[in-house]
């Protein structure tokens, strides 16, 4: 008898046991707790929440632990859990101008109302391995800001340009935004659908696409108008109480890119905007998202579609982490029935070919 690729239940079971051991590593080393991951790997937790499309740092930390640090796998776990949750309703749109900021920078102004707040960032660190960390870190006390971070609304940098009408106004279409969880992505996708797809899209893919626009594939001269990260309150409307109720506070990152002018016979030139928003501390992701969002606005701005980042079918059909990783990895599944029919075909074609050659 043969065994071939027929695996069977026991093989699968054993494989999963081996995976458990791989995850745990050397049992003499203390086990990581989810709390440790949540506290000490906040950026990994942020990415899992953003692409997993679920704001829950505890479950994101659990997913990271379970996936042995494989981010794509952790995102998958979170998404697969999230899909089973019933949808109670929609929150009111968050107001990022009311953000309790931890970080807020603008590259387009030297200073602006509310000031530049550098906050926690890798920027300007020298990327030198810190061997002291390999032992135990000595943590200095966190610096105190001179003024307490503003509690009153902190206007977005883009408002300055809006006031002068130098930035193309974002028009509220008053249409209910598409909900990609409830309806399939269909083309052409409106901006609400595009932004949702990008918000949960793979950071690496979006970063490379954004990069491609900077290098000349649909170049649109971006400036980082503003990047902010911090905490916003989430409100839901209660029918019974007829009022808006705060249900908690979430951490988000937001980026607004200011791009090259558009204008035509009827409208004077104006800057245009690309927008990025993500759960958690996800600065690079929101910057990439803003670049790609801007590139995808080509139809609305009457720009010729010439580059991959402008092609919404190309971008949106391929940006999802789960879609991409699933389909690439499915090649590991047995395909021997189809391969058999290809074998048979190629043998036929080759024998026909050599018969014809013999005739000549």
């Amino acid at each position: 008898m043969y065994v071939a690729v027929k695996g069977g239940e026991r093989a699968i079971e054993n494989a999963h046991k081996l995976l458990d051991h791989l995850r745990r590593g050397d049992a003499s080393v203390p086990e990581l707790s989810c709390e440790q991951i949540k506290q000490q790997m906040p950026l990994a937790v942020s990415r899992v929440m953003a692409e997993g499309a679920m704001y829950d740092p505890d479950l994101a930390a659990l997913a990271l632990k379970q996936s042995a640090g494989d981010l794509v796998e952790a995102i998958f776990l979170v998404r697969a859990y999230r899909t089973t949750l019933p949808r109670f309703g929609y929150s009111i749109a968050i107001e990022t101008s009311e953000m309790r900021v931890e970080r807020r920078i603008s590259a387009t102004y030297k200073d602006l109302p509310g000031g530049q707040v550098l906050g926690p960032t890798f920027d300007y660190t020298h990327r030198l391995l810190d061997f002291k960390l390999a032992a135990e870190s000595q943590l200095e006390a966190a610096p105190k800001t001179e003024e307490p971070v503003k509690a009153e609304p902190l206007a977005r940098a883009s408002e300055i340009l809006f006031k002068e009408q130098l930035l193309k106004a974002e028009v509220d279409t008053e249409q209910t935004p598409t909900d990609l969880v409830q309806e399939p992505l269909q083309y052409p996708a409106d901006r609400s659908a595009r932004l949702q797809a990008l918000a949960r899209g793979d950071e690496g893919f979006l970063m490379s696409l954004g990069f491609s626009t900077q290098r000349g594939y649909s170049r649109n001269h971006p400036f980082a108008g503003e990047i902010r990260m911090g905490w916003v309150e989430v409100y839901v409307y209660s029918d019974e109480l007829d009022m808006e109720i705060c249900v908690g506070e979430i951490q988000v990152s937001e980026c607004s890119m200011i791009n090259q002018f558009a204008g035509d016979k009827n409208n004077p030139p104006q800057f245009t905007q690309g927008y990025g928003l993500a759960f958690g501390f996800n600065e690079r992701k929101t910057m990439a998202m803003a670049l790609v969002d801007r590139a995808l606005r080509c139809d609305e701005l009457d720009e010729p579609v010439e580059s991959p980042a402008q092609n919404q079918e190309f971008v949106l059909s391929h940006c999802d982490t789960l879609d991409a990783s699933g389909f690439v990895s499915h090649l590991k599944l047995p395909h021997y029935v189809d391969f058999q029919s290809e074998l048979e075909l190629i043998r036929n074609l080759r024998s026909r070919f050599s018969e014809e050659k013999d005739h000549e």
Partner: protein
Amino acid sequence: MSEQLYNFGYLDENSKRMIRRALLKAVALPGYQVPFAGKEMPMPYGWGTGGVQLTASIIGKKDCLKVIDQGADDTTNAVSIRNFFKRVCDVETTEETGDATVIQTRHRIPEQALTENQIMVFQVPIPEPLRYIEPSETETRKMHALKEYGVMHVKLYEDIARHGEIATSYAYPAEVNGHYIMDPSPIPKFDNPKLDNSPTLMLFGAGREKRIYAVPPYTNVKSLDFEDYPFTPQTWTRKCDLCGSEHSYLDEIVTDDKGSRLWVCSDTDFCQKNQAKQEQSNV
């Protein structure tokens, strides 16, 4: 385990209803790809999530489920999907084609004739038969709507001009009920005739691509061809080395590094039944 945290069939009832609505539409428009709000499933896209969602939406407590991959019940992914449904539905499962009321499959249709009391669920990776000719979804939807399929035959024409025959051996496109051209999923063309006028409801689910389509019972399914180059399914000059069947789809098993081979049925249930029959008649 945490199974009890999940609904019967894993999906919540609203999601199931949404999928069943799409199914009704798919049955009403044979071969038409109905977009639906596909859900993430706890297995990767490309590993059968479309089929799993369909099965999860139609399965009931009294159903008996069979899952095959490459025709076999014991391939790793078939085992994994069967176990999933055992966990989240606790339904009866079987390896016997005749006992199953729902058969989820990847890449094969069982050899044993199916009946009106069964439903086939196919896992589909790329539902769009025009995709490799026309990458734009906007354009292919229009081509389907207007039945503009000339370019499909151009592909077949090119095959004959270059190779002397139609060089498509699996996922062989077929016209359903005189209108829509569909991808029958990557089954070998050997299985295409089983789709035509079948008593069984055939459902196709593409999870990642978020499309559902169907061939209702007793519907015409015509594999594309030319009058002078008719569609021909694969045939073998050999018999199955295990059961002696002359009419089943055979897998080639390489048994050593000197090129020795066994040819055996890909449908493991069919093969085992055949073998059992012979043992009985030998007794």
